[in-house]
Structures are given as C-alpha cells and as structure tokens.
C-alpha cells in the first residue's frame, strides 16, 4: 500500500545563538525520532501542548523545513529531494489571520495563489467562484480582506489551501481563536473534504475537533509521539470509569439514599424542591444500570445520562504521565 505520509525516525533540531554575538550555541530538539504512516484518504490528528513540535513536524512534511535526520515521504516522494514535485500535490493552511494580502480583496488573493500554483488562466475564474462558494464567501469576494472577521479570513485560507486540488491538506490549528459557529463551519468543511477522499493531516488543541474530523490521533509531547491510535480505542484504553447522572422526583429521596449502601461515592443534590440529582461513578456500568432500574422500579426517571471518558480525559492523562 502506498501511504500518503510516511515518517521514519524524523528529527529536527533548532540551533540558536546565545550571549554576546551569539557565540554560545543552544540546540533545541523540536521533533525527536518520530515515526508513523498516514494512509491515503485518512484523517489524522496531531494533538499536543504548546511547543510540543506539531508545527515543526507539519513544516517538515510541507517542505518548508529540512529534517535534521530521519526520512519523510509524501505520496512516495522525499521531502528533501522532491520538494518541488510534492508542493504541486499538497497544500497547507495555518491558523491565525496572517498569510493574506489584507489590503486586497478575497478574489485578488485567490487569483494570485492560482497563478503561483499554475492554475491555467482560463480555469481560474471558475475555480475562484467554486472555492468562494464552497467556503461561503461569495458575498465578500470583492471586499478587502482587512475588513474580514477572523472566521472569514480562515475560510479564505482554506479556499486558498484548496486552489490546487491537493491530495493531502495539512491544517495547522485551523480554528484557533475562532468563535464556535465559525469553528463548526470549518470543521464541517474539512470533514466533507475528507469524505471526498482528501487526506487530512490536522494539528489542533481542540479534542472535539480531532474527534469530529479524525480517524486516528497521535499525541505528541516534547517532540516525541507518545501514542498513536484510533480515537475510540484510545478512549476505551484510557477509560477508568463511567459517570452516571440521574434526575428523579424529590419524593423518592429515601430510595435514592438506599443506593449509598452499594455506591459510597454517590452524590445527591437536593437543592431543587421538585427534583433530586444523583451522580454515581462506577466501573461496571451494566451492574449499576441494573441497580438503578431495580431501586426506581415503576418510578418515572426524569433524566439519565451516562458519560464515558472523553478524548480530553485520555489526552490529559497521557500527556501528564509522559
């Protein structure tokens, strides 16, 4: 199988000067011996705290940086030797509002990048209209980018990132600093692109974003990959317990308290006159649900909610332990 991305022992050091005339050299390892593959059409997320090495890794894969050691292939081509060929078939979108000519219009920006990606002149007009429509910016096509909101700028970035119909789209924190509605739109768009077969390589701080878009996620910390797996598998592997939230009418408080005999960690909130809220933390969910139905037999349960460990719980646990 030909992979979209193949990474083998990839390492990147940054050397910077210190002291008078930068005489002392300081070496920082941003990415340390990273190896993994991404299948064609897959959506993979790279999660990690600030300074973990996510952006450096993306920059190496998009040919902006040369690795200090190791090897990376994009669509079977080497990122160092075949940079020119790779650039034609991939694209990258960075988060934030930089990277655009703000005094020019959205259309001008897209037209410029059409030319830098060698889109034939006669196809440019239709391509620009198609992309503006895809990201929902048709109404603002001829407005200066400096008057755009953060969300609109990010949508324009994504339109620019699709100008060459890339086989792989690298997204570096694409929704950073955006409001929930704009983030949702961007996530939906990326998801649709992936469903159409585009390989997505995403870095993000937002677990929900990774859960919505990605098939697999890699956790990176201090330059090293500490876990790479399917999201559901990670959640199951790192799930310690279930949280059960239950709401019943307040007249059944005595019955509710009877659960305390078995569940010492049971929390009862009776601050509301009409209802009481119960919270049980349990490992064996099926057993707990049986106990609840037996205690509240023939009683109308107002609400029942079972929460499993989220990706965020797993992430915090893994990063803190690494």
């Amino acid at each position, binding site marked *: 199988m030909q992979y979209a991305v193949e990474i083998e022992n990839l390492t*990147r050091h*940054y050397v910077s000067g210190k002291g008078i005339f930068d005489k002392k050299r300081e070496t920082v390892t941003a990415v340390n011996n990273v190896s993994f593959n991404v299948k064609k059409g897959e959506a993979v997320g790279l999660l990690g705290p600030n300074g973990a090495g996510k952006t*450096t890794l993306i*920059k190496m894969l*998009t*040919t*902006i*940086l*040369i690795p200090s050691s190791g090897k990376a292939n994009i669509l079977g081509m080497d990122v160092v030797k075949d*940079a*020119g060929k790779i*650039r*034609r078939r*991939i*694209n*990258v979108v*960075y988060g*934030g509002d*930089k*990277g*655009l*000519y*703000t*005094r*020019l219009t959205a259309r*001008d920006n897209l*037209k*410029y*990048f059409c*030319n*830098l*990606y*060698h889109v034939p*002149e006669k196809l440019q007009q239709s391509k620009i209209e198609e992309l503006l429509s895809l990201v929902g910016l048709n109404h603002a096509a001829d407005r*200066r980018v400096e008057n755009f909101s953060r969300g609109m700028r990010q949508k324009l970035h994504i339109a*620019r990132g699709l100008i*060459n119909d890339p086989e792989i789209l690298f997204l570096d924190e694409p929704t950073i600093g955006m409001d929930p509605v704009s983030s949702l739109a961007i996530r939906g768009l990326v998801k649709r692109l992936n469903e159409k077969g585009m390989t997505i390589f995403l870095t993000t701080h937002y677990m929900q974003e990774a859960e919505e878009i990605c098939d697999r996620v890699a956790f990176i910390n201090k330059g090293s990959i500490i876990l790479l797996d399917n999201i559901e598998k990670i959640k199951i592997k790192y799930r310690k317990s279930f949280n059960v939230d239950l709401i019943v009418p307040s007249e059944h408080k005595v019955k509710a308290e009877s659960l305390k005999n078995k569940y010492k960690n049971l929390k009862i909130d009776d601050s509301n006159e009409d209802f009481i809220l119960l919270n049980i933390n349990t490992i064996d969910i099926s057993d707990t649900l049986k106990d609840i139905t037996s205690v509240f037999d023939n009683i109308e349960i107002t609400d029942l909610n079972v929460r499993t460990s989220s990706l965020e719980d797993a992430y915090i646990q893994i990063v803190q332990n690494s």
Partner: protein
Amino acid sequence: MKKIIQEIKASIILTTKDCLSHSALLFEISLGAIIYSIVSIYLYKDQSSTNSVFYMLLGAGAMGVWESTLLGGAWTLRDEKEQGLLEYYLCAPSNMLSIIFGKCFVYTIIGLIVILEIFLIIYFSFDLSAIYVNYYKLIAAFFLLLFSFSITGFLLSFGFLLARSFLNISNFLSDSIKLFCGVLFPITVLPYGFRALSVILPPTWGVEIMRTTLINRSESYISFGGAALMIILLTFLYLCIALSLYKVIETKIRQKGELSKF
C-alpha cells in the same frame, strides 16, 4: 518558461494593486525625490556652473530612485515575512525568484516615475537650450540607471530571506550606496580602497551614465558607452550570481527555519 512568465505576471499585478492601495507609500517615494531635488536647487542656485547644479540634482534624483527600488526589492519582502506570506510562497510550486523579480519590476517602474519628476524639475528650472541633450541617450540612461538599481535591490532582497536582522544591514547598505556610488560626489574623491568597492557596484555606473548625458563630458570620468557597458556587465554578473545562489539560499532557508521569524 510559460510557468515562470505566469508567476512574474501574477507578482507584477499583485504588487501593483498592493502599491496602489498604499497611497501613503507612493506619496513618500514620490515626494522624497522632489524634496531632495528642490533642496539641491536652492542650495546650489548661486553656483556659476549649471553642471554643478545638475550634478547635485541628478544625485538627489538617484537617491529617490534608490529608495524606491530598495523598497521594492527588499523592504516589501520583510513586510511579507512579517505577514507570514513567505512560508506560503515556499510551500507553493512556484519559484520565489519570479515573485521577487515581479516586485522589483513594479518598484522600478515607480522609480521611473520618480526620475521623470526629477527631469521635469530640471526642464522647468533650467534653460536646457543652452546645453546639448541627446534625448535618445537620456532615455537609455534612465533605463540603465533603473536596471542597475533594481538588480542591486533584487540581490539585497535575498538577505531578507536569509537573516531576520537584515533590516539593520540594509539600512547601512542603503546609506553606504549613497556614499560609495557617487550619488553626492564623484567617486574619484574617495580613497582608493573605497573606490574599488564603488566600481563593482552597478548603481555607481547608473548615476554616472545619467550625468554623462546632461553634464559636459569633460567633467565626467567615463563615456556614455563605457558606463553603459559597465552597467550591463555588472548587472549581468549580479544576475548570474543571484540565479545560481538561489538554490543554495532556498536550502539554507529550509535548514535555518527562520522564515517566520522577524
């Protein structure tokens, strides 16, 4: 070749639109040259020799042109570095040289406008009928001056790609070029060591060729043809150096990873 033309054309169109949207910048470039020229006229208006006034006036004009071409070739790249655009250029399959060349071309045209302003000031301030002006040579001199300046700006722009502290160096070079290229005084008054530096800088010959067309030839140390040949040879040499260095520079940029630092 078709792709390179497409890239250069795109860069020219974008830079033109971007320039037109920065009206204050155009005003600054344009006004700077006029102010230098008017101050020169007032400083030297009592000089008996028209040649001395021309000498200063053309020097002042050249300073204005130099600011324009340097702005185009180098300083705009620094702005784009700050805006995070250079990383997007590097990700694209296009050649960054074409983009830089397009920018230099636009600012060279702005430089042409500046030098035309200077010429109009000369035309209306002095009685040109008293001296013989070969207008064909004058036009050729305009273009050679711009060519020499824009290629120097083109080379300087590489510095902004490589080093984030290049602004300080470029400010130094900008001032040095005014001193070493005979903008304010003939290079013959410079010590020998500095004169060697002057002769290898294309703007030296760009300024001189302008003067040979308007000033009595006996006051110039080189003929029109000699200066033109020097400009062509040096700019060709600099262009070859730039083109051959680019691959090395791109590799260096990718090794250093400072394209987003400024």
